[in-house]
C-alpha cells in the first residue's frame, strides 16, 4: 500500500520535473532577452555575470526606436505580413472550400502537390523565386516578399482550412443555394460564420510565420524600403560592435505584436484548432 503511494508520488514528481525542464528550456532565452534589454551596456559586457539588472534602464528601448530604422523595419514587416494574410485568406479560403466540398478532376493530385511543395527546403526555392520576382520587377518590394511568403504559407493555409471546411455538412450550401444564395454567397453568409474560429487560428499561424520569417526576407529585400525587422536587426551587428542591449530590446518589441495577437484570439484559436477533433 505504502509502496504504491510512494511510486505514484515518484511518478508525479517525475512528470513535473520533465514539464519544468521543457518550460525552462523554452522560456529561459526569452527571460534572458528581457533581462538583457534592461541592462546598461557595462552590465552586459562584464567579467562577472549578473542575473538581474542592478540598475534597470529603458534606454535600449528608447534608443532603438529613436536612433535606428527600427520603426521602418516594423512597418515593413507589418505591411508584408498583412499582404500575406490577405492573399492567403482570400485565395486560400476559396481554394480550401472547393477542395473540401467539390469534386473536380485532379483534386487529389493538386492537394498532394501542395504538400510536396512544403517538403522542399526553403533554400531550394529561393533562387527560382528570386529569378521570378526579378523578372516581374517585384524584387525588394512588399508585394514581392508577400508573394514569396504565400508560396510556402498558402499550402499550409489550404490544408488547415480544408480541415475546418470538412466538418461543415455539404447540405448547408445546398440549402442556402435553394434559399437564394449563389455558391460564393452561401460560402460567405452560411459557411464562413461556422469556420470563423478556424479561419482566425489559421490566419494567425500564417501571420506569425510571415512576421518572423528571416531567410526569404534576407535574400529578396535589399533596401530599407522593404526590409523586415528580422533582417534589419541582424544587420545592426557591425564589424566592430555588437549592440547587445539594442538587439535585445528590438527582439522584445518585435514579439509584442505576436503576444498581443495571441492574447486577443487565444480562446478562439484553441477552439478553432480543436474544432475538428470534437464536433459540436
Amino acid at each position, binding site marked *: 500500500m505504502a509502496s504504491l503511494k510512494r511510486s505514484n508520488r515518484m511518478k508525479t514528481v517525475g512528470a513535473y520535473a520533465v514539464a519544468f525542464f521543457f518550460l525552462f528550456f523554452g522560456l529561459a532565452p526569452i527571460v534572458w532577452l528581457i533581462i538583457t534589454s534592461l541592462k546598461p551596456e557595462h552590465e552586459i559586457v562584464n567579467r562577472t555575470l549578473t542575473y538581474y539588472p542592478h540598475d534597470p534602464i529603458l534606454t535600449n528601448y528608447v534608443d532603438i526606436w529613436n536612433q535606428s530604422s527600427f520603426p521602418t523595419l516594423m512597418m515593413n514587416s507589418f505591411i508584408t505580413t498583412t499582404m500575406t494574410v490577405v492573399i492567403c485568406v482570400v485565395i486560400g479560403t476559396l481554394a480550401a472550400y472547393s477542395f473540401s466540398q467539390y469534386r473536380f478532376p485532379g483534386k487529389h493530385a493538386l492537394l498532394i502537390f501542395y504538400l510536396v511543395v512544403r517538403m522542399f527546403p526553403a533554400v531550394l526555392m529561393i533562387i527560382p523565386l528570386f529569378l521570378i520576382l526579378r523578372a516581374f520587377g517585384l524584387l525588394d518590394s512588399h508585394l514581392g516578399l508577400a508573394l514569396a511568403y504565400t508560396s510556402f504559407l498558402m499550402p499550409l493555409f489550404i490544408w488547415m482550412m480544408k480541415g475546418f471546411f470538412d466538418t461543415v455538412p455539404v447540405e448547408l450550401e*445546398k440549402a*442556402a*443555394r*435553394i*434559399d*437564394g444564395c*449563389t455558391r460564393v454567397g452561401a460560402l460567405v453568409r452560411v459557411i464562413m460564420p461556422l469556420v470563423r474560429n478556424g479561419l482566425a487560428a489559421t490566419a494567425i499561424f500564417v501571420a506569425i510565420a510571415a512576421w518572423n520569417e528571416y531567410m526569404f526576407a534576407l535574400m529578396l529585400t535589399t533596401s530599407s524600403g522593404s526590409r523586415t525587422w528580422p533582417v534589419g536587426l541582424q544587420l545592426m551587428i557591425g564589424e566592430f560592435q555588437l549592440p547587445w542591449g539594442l538587439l535585445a530590446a528590438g527582439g522584445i518589441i518585435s514579439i509584442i505584436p505576436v503576444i498581443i495577437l495571441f492574447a486577443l484570439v487565444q480562446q478562439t484559436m484553441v477552439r478553432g484548432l480543436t474544432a475538428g477533433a470534437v464536433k*459540436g
Partner: protein
Amino acid sequence: MKALSLSNVRKRFGQLEVLKGIDLSLDDGGFLVLLGPSGCGKSTLLSIIAGLEELTDGEVKIGDRVANDLHPKDRNIAMVFQSYALYPSMSVRRNLAFGLHMRRVDQATQAEAVERVADLLGIAHLLERRPAQLSGGQRQRVAMGRALVRDPELFLFDEPLSNLDAKLRVQMRSEIKKLHNRLKTTIVYVTHDQVEAMTLATSIAVMREGEIQQNASPSEIYDRPANLFVAGFVGSPQMNFLDGRIVAAGSGASLELGHEGRADNATIPLPPDALAGMEAADGRPVVAGIRPEALFRQEGGAGGLGFGTKVDLVEITGADTIVSFTIAGQEAMARLSADFKPSLGDDLTLAFDPGRLHLFDRETSNRLN
C-alpha cells in the same frame, strides 16, 4: 397543369450511368414519392430537380418553364434535407426568414410569414433558439417551416424522417400528410421506407438502378406490382415468391408449384379469370407471388385454392401471428389472425383469393396476369 415533368432525364458520373432516362410527371397538388433502395438514383434525381446537380441529358420542366439551366434559387422550389441543414449560426427565426431575406422581401412581410409558419408547425416558442438547442423533432419542424415559409411551386423532401426515432417518425409522417391535405402543396418526396411511401403518396415511382420500375398509385403498386422487384420491395413481410409452372388441363388451367418432376409439387387449380390477360401457354415457367396477408386458414381440408402444409415456425407479433411453412420445397410465410396460436409441426390448410395471386415471368420477371 403539370407541376413537374421530367423527360428522358439522364445522369452520368464518368462511366457510371446513375439515371437511365427518367420520364415522370406530377400534377399540381400531387404527392410523388420516389421509392427505392439506397443507390437507386432517387436522391440524385431529386438533386437534379432542385438544380443542385446538372443533368447529362433530358429535360426538367417546373410548372411550364424548362428548368434545365435555371439556378436553384430561380426555380421557385424549397427543399427539406435528411440532415435538416439548418444554419447553425442563425436563430430559428433567421433560419426561417433567410430565404425571404435573400429574395429581398420587406421586413414586415418576412415577420408575418415567419409567425404564420411558426404557428402552423407549433414552433412559435422556439424562434429565438439556435438549431443546436433543439431536439430532433423540433429541428425537423424548423426545416419544414423553412420550406413552407416561401410558398414555393414545388416542395422537395429528401428522406426527411430517417433521422428521427420510430415514434416521432410516425407522428411527423401523419403531420406531413395533414399539411399536404390542408395546404394542397405539390411535393416530391424521396424515401427508402415503403410505409412512408404507401401512406403519404398520391403516386409512387419505384426506382432501381437508375430506372423507374413502376409509377402508379399506392394501391396499384401494392395490388398489381409490375415486376418481381416492385412486388418484393413493397409489403412487409415480403411477398412469397414460389417457382412453378402453368399447366393447362382441358378447359381450365392450374398452377403447379415446385420444380418440374419433383414429388412434393403442389397443384392448385385456377379459375379461368385468374389468367386473364396472359397467354396461358402450357408449361410456361412462372413465379407465383402471394402476399402473406392474402393467405387465410381454410377449415375442412384442402380444396379450391387451398393447400395443406405444416407449421415450421410461429412468430407472434401481438397484432397478428406470422406462420412460416413449406410448400413444394419452398419456404413461405402467412400472416394470420392473432387468436390463432399453432404449435410447431401442426397441420395447416391455407387458401387464398385468386384475385390476389400475382404471376410473373420467370425470365423477364415482369407481371403476367
